[in-house]
């Protein structure tokens, strides 16, 4: 023991770190902040450390070349001992890190932690969120498969819409005219050097401010933050009702961090690594690219916005969100901290959470995407063909062959881009059906040029049979009268 303390003293005489570490670990925190609500930031940091370690391990095998990246991932998955597990840890770690950063942000927002004097801590945190998302996107690119390739195309299409500098920004992003070797190399540099370097710097700043300014106290309704008095009130609180951070506060952080690491490992073990999906060969076009889960909501928004709204929303939306987040501590730097007295804050979080969850859920089903093989893979269910005439059956054939099923479902099978047609005859009369098929409209292409009159007649005859047994097909009452008069 004497030897160990002698060695320790030798190092400390040179490093002089023992005193500041003792000071940091012994700094007093308000007792009620030693709560399970205060563990998300340290858990995000722990997962970040896991990402650093697993990232370095993956770099031992990964080749950042457009020609070889995909094969090196296959080697990691199948040849290198435990390569699949390290990939799983890194992939699941990234999912957990995004989720933890968002939860941490929600918690500090609801607890009013961004108010005086912690405005800069919040702002640095906003940049940490951006960098985490940047890591998530660039990481998805490094998994250089079909999703990564076309995901880059989507990124380029969005960037190209920036006025004036759009095309140049695309060339800068891709490192050339097309998505190719240079693109992967620069995303590798971003993912491995640039963003992690900035992340480490910003994390240090973020932590330094937490130490210097103290952890945000548990918000009490009615305890108002005022710039003039807050700091002395906070010190009085830590004196009167405070404890040393180690061990009073830290044990919950440690337990939760270990639990999260265990959860990441369990996911990696049970679900395995992500992809890679198909080889990144642009001549293979039988692919339906989808982003990873943290960007699914964006994928949904891009489908659901009206076309004319899309470019303004893409270009102005992020600026507004960023400005809102950065200005928040200046717009409400004082006042009530407790969520119990901040209904708009609570409603905002709920609205955002519900919107993100809904869009993510929608994107998982992607009802706006045509089912490309429904016309050949999902035949018209038999119950729709019972007791039908030859003409109507011919119509069913036209319905199938002309790829109507790619967008229109029957009995739940087929695309959901257009309305399901199980009961279409109840909604539309014969004339309306003909018009809709030939002229299109309401987001349906016009089929006039691709259907012969005979095909249209057969198709509409089939569509007219699509109504429930007890419910008659819609008909144009006035037309009946006109026809009746004509025949008299």
């Amino acid at each position, binding site marked *: 023991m004497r030897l160990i303390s002698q060695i320790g003293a030798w190092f400390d005489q040179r490093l002089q770190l023992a005193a500041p570490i003792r000071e940091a670990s012994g700094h007093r925190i308000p007792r009620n902040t030693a709560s399970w609500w205060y563990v998300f930031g340290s858990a995000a940091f722990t997962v970040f450390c896991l990402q650093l370690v697993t990232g370095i391990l993956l770099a031992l095998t990964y080749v950042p*070349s*457009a*020609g*070889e990246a995909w094969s090196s991932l296959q080697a990691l998955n199948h040849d290198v001992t435990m390569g699949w597990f390290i990939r799983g840890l890194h992939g699941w770690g990234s999912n957990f890190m995004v989720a933890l950063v968002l939860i941490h942000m929600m918690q500090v927002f609801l607890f009013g932690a961004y108010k005086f004097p912690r405005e800069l801590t919040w702002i640095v945190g906003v940049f940490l969120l951006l960098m985490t998302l940047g890591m998530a996107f660039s990481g998805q690119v490094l998994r250089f498969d079909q999703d990564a*390739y*076309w995901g880059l*195309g*989507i990124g*380029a*299409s969005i*960037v*190209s819409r920036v006025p004036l500098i*759009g*095309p*140049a920004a*695309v*060339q*800068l992003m*891709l*490192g*050339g*005219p*097309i*998505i*190719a*070797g*240079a*693109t992967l*190399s620069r995303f590798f540099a971003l993912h491995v050097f640039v963003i992690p370097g900035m992340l480490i710097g910003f994390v240090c700043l973020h932590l330094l401010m937490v130490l210097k300014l103290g952890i945000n106290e548990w918000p009490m309704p009615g305890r108002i933050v005022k710039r003039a008095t807050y700091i002395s009130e906070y010190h009085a609180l830590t004196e009167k009702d405070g404890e040393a951070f180690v061990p009073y506060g830290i044990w919950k952080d440690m337990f939760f961090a270990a639990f999260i690491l265990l959860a990441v490992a369990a996911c990696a073990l049970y679900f395995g690594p992500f992809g890679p999906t198909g*080889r*990144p*060969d*642009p*001549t293979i*076009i*039988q*692919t*339906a*690219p989808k982003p990873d889960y943290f960007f699914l909501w964006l*994928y949904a928004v*891009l*489908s659901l916005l009206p076309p*004319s709204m899309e*470019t303004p929303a893409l270009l102005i939306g992020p600026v507004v969100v960023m400005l809102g987040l950065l200005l928040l501590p200046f717009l409400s730097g004082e006042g009530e901290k407790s969520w119990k007295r901040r209904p708009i804050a609570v409603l905002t979080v709920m609205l955002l959470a519900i919107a993100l969850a809904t869009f993510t859920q929608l994107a998982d089903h992607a009802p*706006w*995407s*045509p089912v*490309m093989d429904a*016309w050949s893979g999902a035949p018209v269910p038999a119950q729709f063909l019972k007791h039908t005439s030859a003409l109507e059956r011919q119509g069913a054939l036209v319905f199938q*062959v*002309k*790829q*109507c099923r*790619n*967008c229109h479902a029957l009995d739940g099978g087929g695309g959901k881009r257009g309305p399901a047609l199980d009961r279409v005859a109840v909604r539309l009369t014969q004339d309306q059906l003909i018009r809709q098929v030939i002229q*299109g409209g309401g*987001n349906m*292409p016009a089929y006039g*040029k*691709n259907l012969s009159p005979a095909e249209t007649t057969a198709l509409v005859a089939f569509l007219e049979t699509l109504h429930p047994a007890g419910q008659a097909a819609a008909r144009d009452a006035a037309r009946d009268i006109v026809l009746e008069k004509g025949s008299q």
Partner: protein
Amino acid sequence: MANEPTMTRRRLFAKLGILFNGCVAAALAVPIGRFVLSSITHARANGYLTWVPLGRVNEFPEGETRLATFRNPLVEPTDGKTVDTACWVRHIAGEQFQVFAINCAHLGCPVRWFQQSGLFMCPCHGGAYYRDGSRASGPPERGLFEYPYKVENGLITIQAGETPTPGGPTAALPGKECSCA
């Protein structure tokens, strides 16, 4: 304190030191900036577009739309398969063609041709285009991107080399009206 001169010899040297470093940094910034922006300046100076052969006219039956592939004119050693590009070739009649980029005009996903319904459909957000590339439905704000083409000695050649994007320079290139055909 008040009598102390505001500019000592040491302070002057410290300031000159900052100035010296600033000059060196400015000098180094030029090559570094040129390196970082090289993909943009290359496009400005030489352009990325070149005429690329797609195949013989008789490989594309009249009245049909076929998938063709070509190698991007600019190839770097680490590009792998990514320089192989697909496009849709519609042979209207005689020497009249339309060559569409594979990329949807919405966000660049690969569109697929459906002969029977005469539509191009996008798997990502459901954009659809008619056989002549014009917009049929969905989120795209415009028709498919077209490569300028020419037919010489029975060979169809297109002007390609840059991924078409909604705001990109190739988006505005003429298609049907191309005088070079």
